[in-house]
């Protein structure tokens, strides 16, 4: 079952598509941001899963222990940065939604477009 053997990549793809669907299809701005968050988290999982070495343990170096197989620490470090970026994006997005609510009194995309058209 090689098809299912790569199940962690399927998790990535399915999550990515769920997030992307929400970003494209939802009209509520908060729901769009939730979708964006899921979309980004899927990519975090892609990075985490690629760093796993079969049988490898946490990459904590010690002089007493030798001959241990470690997982690759670099993708995890990279994704730590990407998580920070993701949080900042979500926070800024939510901040903008608050401002939109203050100015327009709505967080539904079609209602905002309607107000702008007047």
């Amino acid at each position, binding site marked *: 079952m090689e098809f299912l053997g790569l199940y962690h990549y399927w998790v990535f793809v399915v999550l990515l598509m769920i997030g992307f669907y929400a970003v494209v299809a939802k009209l509520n701005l908060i729901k769009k941001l939730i979708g964006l968050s899921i979309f980004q988290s899927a990519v975090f999982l892609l990075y985490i899963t690629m760093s796993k070495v079969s049988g490898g343990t946490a990459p904590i170096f010690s002089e007493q222990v030798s001959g241990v197989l470690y997982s690759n620490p670099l993708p995890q470090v990279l994704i730590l*940065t990407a998580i920070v970026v993701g949080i900042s994006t979500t926070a*800024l997005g939510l901040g*903008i939604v608050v401002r939109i609510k203050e100015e327009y009194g709505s967080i539904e995309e079609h209602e905002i477009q309607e107000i*702008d058209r007047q």
Partner: protein
Amino acid sequence: MTGLEAHLPVLQVVVPMLVAPLVVLLHPRGLAWFAATVASAASFLLAVQMAGGVLAGQVYRYALGGWPAPYGIALEVDAFSVLLLLILTGASTLALAAGRASLDRQIELHRQPLFFAAWLLALAGMAGILVSADAFNIFVFMEISSLASYVLVAGGPDRRALPAVFKYLIMGTVGATFYLIGVGLIYMMTGTLNLADMELRIHEVADQRPILVAAGFITIGLALKAALFPLHVWLPNAYTYAPHAVSVFLAACATKVSLYILLRFDFVVFQGNLAGHDAQFAAFLMPLAVLAILVGSAVALFEVNIKRLLAYSSVAQIGYIVLGASLVSVPGLSAGLLHMFNHALSKGALFLAVMCLSTRVGDLNLQDLSGAARRMPWTLAALVVAGLSLIGVPGTAGFVSKWYLMTAALQEGLLGWVLVAVIVLGSLMAVAYVWRIVEAAWFKDAPAGDGADRPGEAPLGMLVLTWLAALSNVWFGLVTQVPRELATTAAAILLRHLP
């Protein structure tokens, strides 16, 4: 290289990034603006210094923290980077220096320090993209600059900027995340993030699917950030409702920085390693570029808001740049790169003129401009000069790059004639939409009882800098050597893998 010169690439990022938090503390009136302008001007001088070195045949390499590549983060500045650095820092400095009066009107005094900090972060982020030679580092800088530009666009008093910036944020993040997926897949297959190292190692795994998928994700993601048609929908509203000075800054350089990464990845990393990459690249991007030119120009013909009109014109101009790149030949690519420089000059000058107008005219719709030329002849004369360059009239910068673009297209045989027809048609439409502004401002009478609008010209400083930008269009239309040499060298570097 001794002393300071060895550190030029990293200073390009460090100077604006370190000044940004300091600016937040500068509350007395005008001080934050002054500090930001000085930092931006310093960046410009650094870029000029490096341009001198690059023209003398030097390539600046810098190992961050002393860790040698490919393990550490490497910075590299060659002709392509320096061309874009000149555009970026020049546009930022000019927009800041000229924009003071306009920003004072649009940004409340107590928010100004934060606004200028965001400006410097956007500048630092974009400069970081341009000097970096590390794929993940580029992603981080891309997000720094994007987050800061969202703040800049949303900073103005127009509430319509908020939905516009929300859309910009969503689409920008999706684009950046696509890029991140592509980089992840490449890392998975090659184990490296350094672009030069990637170029060598990708060869062994080039025929495997993850690399092809990565190429797709990176190209689409960056095309989204570069507002290539049909992925441009975030751009018009973001440029229109942003504070006027921000429009000058972003219109001149934001999309071009994304195009820079796109071209670097596609030509340097993928071109030499993926079979038939040049044919696929051309087949994918050329139709989009042609559509961008035609649709962008056509929409601009019918817009009533000048800033929106110019924004749609930008969509068309990105089309010209990509069209040059999609010819995948040294003459074509160097024409495209030269057009990056020349479009930054003309669009920057046009938006500067619009900023001048905005100080005296309430709304920026065409009908509000009626008779404006009688009150502000200097502003509108500058607008005409920059508009001529946008059209591509001989003697201006826009002509030079369009001429090279047509010459390069003609080498493609029958297809080339079609492309030339597209370029000519796009330029004719540019004549029409620039004329609409000129007609409204110069040949329509001011509506009766117009005494309410404040008479007189824009502030002198703003006007002088606008004219400086407008005249640089003429200057670089006559003395083309420096940008042309940089563009040609950059194209030769990018296309070194061409069979």
